[in-house]
């Protein structure tokens, strides 16, 4: 269920918004033609920010809260939820904290609406059986209560972005239990996220290297299986739902190298109580980048690292957006030698494309296959970026 790709895409994009002059960082429109890597590339504007250079010494609840020295940070929840009658839904809610200027830059300002950070959020509901996909976006400056991220050292995590929020409950661990609320004119949801399987530190004790360049890395940990319940409203309908979610935490200042153009990100929850995460970084020529990584989380919380030389990832078929603006792979097969698994990943609805500031596909998927010789099935989330038609790289 990891969906870091979009996060990187957005992170890079926002970094460019923050840094660029009038010399034309375009591509924020629906028909984004700017290559992902171009947006994410370390263009030197990381000056003044902290970089992820070594494995961090994570400490909680402190590190559930914001890390304002870094440029980009997110709290990313995806979930597959069902009603008691078996109606299936996919849910996505992500909050980005984005620095617009380094903390050290310029003099302090007195205007109450002055801001150095912004909060950006995406929410989506996949109504699998109703064959509808709803999504929306919010942007808010971190000022005057419009957008804010607090918590960690000074209390439970609290994120606000306009009318959406994520609020950790008092008496919890600073992050969980977490209450989520988001919606738009045609949909809304309120969810309660409880504690589940233990935290997984990605990469080297939480340092997730994305390319060879030192500093092109993030601090990254995941909560791969969390019980979630709540209400989804679609128009006048209300659905009581429950199911299983995935929460990713990640912060960084820069990540991708200049030859990386996009990625395909899998977060799969299998019915044998294991989870598989894989991100495939794509290079200019379409091949997989050797910095692609993943993990398999056992039911007891043990983690196996997945490396590209043992993984074979292939796509099958294509889905084209109605306006022809983007073409995505339709189905995927993940085959791993060690630990051994073969998983077929199929979207539960073909159109789960978010046409937000950045255009990408992120949605609920069904999984079938074998693991260790035994048949497994499951559900998960898939994210695909860098597929906009005409994307230069």
């Amino acid at each position, binding site marked *: 269920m990891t969906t870091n790709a979009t996060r990187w895409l957005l992170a890079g994009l*926002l970094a460019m*918004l*923050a*840094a*660029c*002059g*009038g010399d*034309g*960082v*375009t*591509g*924020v*429109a629906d028909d984004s033609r700017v290559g992902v890597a171009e947006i994410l590339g370390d263009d030197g504007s990381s000056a003044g920010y902290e970089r992820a250079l070594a494995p961090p010494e994570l400490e909680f609840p402190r590190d559930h809260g914001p890390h304002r020295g870094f440029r980009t940070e997110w709290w990313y929840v995806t979930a597959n939820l069902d009603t008691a009658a078996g109606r299936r839904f996919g849910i996505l809610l992500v909050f980005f904290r984005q620095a*617009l*200027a380094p903390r050290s*830059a*310029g*003099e302090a*300002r*007195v*205007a*109450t*609406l*002055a*801001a*150095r950070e*912004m909060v950006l959020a995406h929410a989506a509901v996949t109504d699998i059986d109703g064959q509808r996909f709803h999504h929306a*976006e*919010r*942007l*808010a*400056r971190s*000022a*005057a*209560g*419009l*957008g804010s991220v607090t918590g960690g050292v000074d209390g439970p995590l609290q994120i606000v*972005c*306009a*009318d*959406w929020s994520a609020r950790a409950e008092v008496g919890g661990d600073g992050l969980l239990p977490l209450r989520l609320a988001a*919606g*738009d*004119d045609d949909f809304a949801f309120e969810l309660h996220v409880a504690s589940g399987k233990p935290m997984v530190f990605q990469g080297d004790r939480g340092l997730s290297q994305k390319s060879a360049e030192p500093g092109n890395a993030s601090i990254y940990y995941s909560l791969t299986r969390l019980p979630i319940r709540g209400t989804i409203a679609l128009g006048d309908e209300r659905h009581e739902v429950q199911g299983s979610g995935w929460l990713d935490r990640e912060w960084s200042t820069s990540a991708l190298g200049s030859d990386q153009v996009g990625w395909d990100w899998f977060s799969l929850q299998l019915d044998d109580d294991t989870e598989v995460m894989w991100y495939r970084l794509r290079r200019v020529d379409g091949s997989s980048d050797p910095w692609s990584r993943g993990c398999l989380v056992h039911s007891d919380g043990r983690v196996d690292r997945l490396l590209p030389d043992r993984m074979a990832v292939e796509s099958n078929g294509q889905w084209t957006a109605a306006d022809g603006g983007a073409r995505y792979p339709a189905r995927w097969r993940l085959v791993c030698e060690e630990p051994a698994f073969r998983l077929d990943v199929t979207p539960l609805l073909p159109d789960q494309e978010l046409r937000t*500031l950045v255009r990408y596909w992120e949605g609920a998927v069904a999984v079938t296959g074998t693991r260790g010789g035994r048949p497994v099935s499951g559900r998960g989330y898939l994210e695909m970026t860098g597929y906009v038609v005409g994307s230069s790289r």
Partner: protein
Amino acid sequence: MRLLLRQGFRHHWRNPLPTLLTLLGIAAGVALLTAMRASQGTAERAFDRAVDAVTGAATHAIVGGPDGLPATSYGVVRAMLRGRGVAPSIHAIARVPDREERTVLRVLGVDPFGDVELRPWSGPRAGDVPVGRLVTEPGGFVATAELLRRLGLAVGTELDLSVGGRLCRARCLGTIAPPANVAAGLRDTLVVDIATAQEWTGRLDRIDRLDLRLAARGLSDETLVQRAVAACGGLARLERVGRGGRSLAQLTQGFRVNVTAMSLLSLLVGAFLVHETMRLSVVARRRSFGVLRALGTKARALGLVVALEALLLGILGSALGVAFGVVAAGELLTPIVRTLNDHYATFGMPVLDLDPWQLTLAGLAGVTVTVVAAAAPAVAAARVSPREVLVTANAGAAAQRSPRLLRAVGWSLPPALLGALLLVTVGDRLVQGYLGMFFVLAAAVALTPPAMELLLRFAARVVARLGPFARYVVRSTASARGHLALPVAAMVLAVATTIGMAVLVTSFRGSVASWLGQVLPGDVYVSIPGGVDERDQPIDDAIVAACGRVPGIVGRTLYRRARLELATGEHRGEIEVVGIEASAAYRAAWPFLAGDAGDVGTGIDAAVAWVSEPLAFRWGLQVGDELTIVAPLRDAKVRVAALYRDYANERGEVIVDATWFAGIASVGVTAMGFEASDGGDPEQLAAAVRAAAAEAAPQNVIVRSQRDLRETSLAIFDRTFAITGVMRLLCLAVAFFGIYSAFSSLQFERAREIGLLRCLGAVPSRIGVVVIGQTVLLGVIAAALAIPLGLVIGQLLAHVINRVSFGWSLVEVTVPGGALVEAAVLAVVAASLAGIWPAVRFARMRPARALQEG
């Protein structure tokens, strides 16, 4: 038909002068109309586009009191209204101290992250906008590439600005490329982040308004929206977007109707020209028309030919007029925008923007007026009787029955009564006022022939002893009075109009000058630089305190000006309210029209107000009436204690006591007046105050002596009326052409009579004297009639039109002797010039030829 047209063409070709003058006359009228409408229209569209561009796709807005809304209301309302379609804005006017005083820039503070739907061109979806830097760099702005070019700026360069007198440094971060209609509205706008706008305006925790996009989102839920409005605090209210009262055309309605009416008047004078020329062309061709009729040409065809000729003249003249008008509009744009800036709204100089529809309309007006004016001659052409013409060649000059005095009076009665009725019941309807005046003028035209006859009889008695030629001059003029009535009436009308305008302007200026003496009893005044839209910018408290401590001051008056929602039982609107803390001299000098000063200005917390004459006029207020001020802290009722004269603000204003006002709204000092001790030099005091202000705070304030301020105010007045001066000149020019062409043609019509005189032994020089004598006589008569009528028009303009347009009465109506003499001289000179060319031609003409020609 073709033959007829060719004949007509030949006639005009052979008599080019009257035709040319007619063309010029039509052209002048149409040009004036075009120029005024085009320049005024350009200003209106520029202003309205700026307003539209600023509102973006909003359908509603939450607006607050004089100091806007608390900044925190943005987040609250956004969360309540489902997170989007809500965007704050701050509006200000910036001036560039380094450049000429007229460089006016608008500042629009937006939230690029909230404006994704409302003003997408400012947000992260707009490619070129460096959103991050715009938000984080204080003073950063973006603007259209065109504006940057005009200001000579490039991305990265800096610009020093003065916003409400505060000096701000702006830095250009990039360009915006909004859709063309929005770009036109942002011609003079620096788009900044809302936080920069807070810093520039010194309103660190406020915003001006919240623009909402509700309709498209099914958010018609009244209670939800009302709760959101209530969350913004006491004075917040929901407004439907649309320019409403802020359209420039509405703000300037009085000005606009006046300008259009004057343009139409000049076109009317042009119509007389057309009538004369066409009539004379028919007279000149009577004989050939008669022959044609005898040969079987249908009467209708002859009428049609004359109408077609008029149509052609109209089209040609109007086309010329539109062309001249467009050129003139370019010239008029600067003074017009300046006038609008002085009195109505502050905005930058727009580029002339021609509305094809307005140009067509002006052209059509010209053509229509021409054709209508030619209707009577066309009918006359159709009525030419072949027998009569062939039998008596002299029918054209046949003496006509003079109009009977009684009948003429009878004709003039209905329009006079109708006009009087319209004027008496005018209320606040300006168009009705003009209609009333039009009917009064029509009555005057109907009375011209008998008046002329009376004057001619009087002249005959005067010249009786001057010999036969003098008697002949008068009698021959009298015998042609039937023909002469119309051109004389036209001349009377044109000259009278110029006199009327002169009366108005002179009286108005005199009234303003004496009024200024009353409202400026102080010796030194301190205010914020800028125009009408910057008058409510507060002066820094430190400056107020420092100026008050300057030695040599014996009295001071503080003004706190704010725009507030005011209401009576039936009226409601945004009106400027001024809280004053006044010296005794101020209260004693104030130009009251009714009531008494009460406790206003004394510091006694009393709910009484002085209401300016324009507001009292528009809202029908009288002393003792009650007025509700809808204010931030609480609604408040005030009793009208007095009405006062005010020429500064045609939308009207209300003055209350500052102490009482402080309990209603928190408004800073916006202007100050100081009185010097006896014998103190105002200029020295001004210098001392200036120095104290400069030291107290980094805000630019204007310190002027009373004399200086008075002169500035009168200069603005003169600038405003410079336009009417131009129009008056044009009216005079049209009148001149009219008189010249009509009178010179008249003389040619009488060639046969002159020939007879020559045969009877008159020497050429005598003939010249006769001809010029006749036209001079007509000029004198026209002047004699125009002066009284001009005075009547002046009174109507001063007392009816001026009052209905702006709501103010004049202190006194002055008759400008100079303008009277000027008008009389013009009439006589134009008339004598009109005689010269015929006189020369007749003097040279062989008598036999003249007899044939007739």
